[in-house]
């Protein structure tokens, strides 16, 4: 079967890009690249994927090399897209779709905007609220965390197109969470601000990034391990800084 290198590279690039931009692991991107390459009997295919970009070299006959570099700037989490890319690479390896069809499908996945995104604000609030209950909250904490989670989700969406999105959204989220929790505690005198703050922080914490960082390092993917660890540290420490400053001020003023 005759395949064009440019189409193959486009498919591989888009697949890896979607995986890395939507929170997939780097080894998953590398494996998908290798998997698609093997399905088309490519002589040589080699890739290095890191959270901030990837490099691919493809050689159809072993003589001429085609290399591609792609920088990843935006990183969000969308498990549905990762699953769809996985489906496409599976279909490609079974040869149930052609390269052109795969390219079309991947472009569709890449461009897709989630229609239910307006509900995400509500889901974020509810998730925070139930975490507040899990960490020892009661009815008042539940509703405070619900409203705080909704506000935080709406505010951090404003920062989405910013260059240093993660830093600003985390630090402002921490600030807002702690402010609301401290004020509600001060005025009602009967809520526990700890459970509100922890409950609202739980969905924002880089839990998987932290564990993935160590796991990548154990696997020997040192660069992506360090990159993930830095990302997790940045998010966690800016969240803590935002909340910490507010609580520190509350102590200094003598609110409680």
């Amino acid at each position, binding site marked *: 079967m005759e395949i064009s290198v440019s189409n193959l590279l486009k498919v591989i690039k888009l697949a890896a890009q979607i995986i890395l931009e939507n929170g997939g692991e780097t080894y998953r991107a590398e494996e998908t690249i290798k998997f698609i390459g093997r399905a088309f009997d490519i002589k040589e295919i080699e890739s290095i994927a890191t959270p901030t970009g990837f490099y691919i070299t493809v050689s159809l006959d072993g003589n001429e090399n085609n290399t591609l570099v792609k920088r990843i700037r935006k990183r969000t989490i969308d*498990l549905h897209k990762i699953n769809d890319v996985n489906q496409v690479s599976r279909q490609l390896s079974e040869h149930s779709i052609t390269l052109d069809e795969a390219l079309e499908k991947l472009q569709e996945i890449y461009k897709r905007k989630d229609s239910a995104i307006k509900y995400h604000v509500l889901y974020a609030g509810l998730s925070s609220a139930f975490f507040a209950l899990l960490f020892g909250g009661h009815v008042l904490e539940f509703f405070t965390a619900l409203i705080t989670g909704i506000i935080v989700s709406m505010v951090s969406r404003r920062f989405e197109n910013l260059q240093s999105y993660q830093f600003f959204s985390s630090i402002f989220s921490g600030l807002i969470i702690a402010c609301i929790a401290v004020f509600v505690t001060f005025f009602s005198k009967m809520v526990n601000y700890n459970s509100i703050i922890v409950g609202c922080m739980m969905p924002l914490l880089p839990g998987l990034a932290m564990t993935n960082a160590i796991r990548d390092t154990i696997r020997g993917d040192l660069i992506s391990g360090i990159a993930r660890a830095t990302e997790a540290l940045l998010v966690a420490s800016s969240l803590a800084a935002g909340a910490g400053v507010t609580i520190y001020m509350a102590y200094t003023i003598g609110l409680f």
Partner: protein
Amino acid sequence: MIEIFLDLIYCFAASLFFALIMNAPKNTLMHTPLVASIGYLIYLACSAQLNTTLGFFAGTTFVAMMGEIFARKFKMPATIFIFPAIIPIVPGFGLYETMLAFVQNDILSALEIGADTIFNIVAMAIAMALVSAAAIKMKSGKMN
């Protein structure tokens, strides 16, 4: 007893909504929170009976194992199941307490809680690495 039961329900709801934020595929939305609650129960039981770090290890092992099993069953990446299910076990409270101790100028207990939290995160990572290594050994050349 009733408190533990309520905790499990809260855990179920919290990870369900978390999975919804992360846009998890619709047909996984019942399995993931269930795994999350059982994993949380294992974590609670082990940390009450044995030791907290062991609790994190055991809970994560269960969640990661179920993630790999469901990944085979649904033919989806294991992350889709592991990511929302692991969130309740992540030591968020430990991180928060570390920060709180720093803010209160209590450096000694901040370092103590901080070191403990890092140990717990490392325990979680080792559990996940072990399970994924075992899963790679077992699968017969197929990618999930």
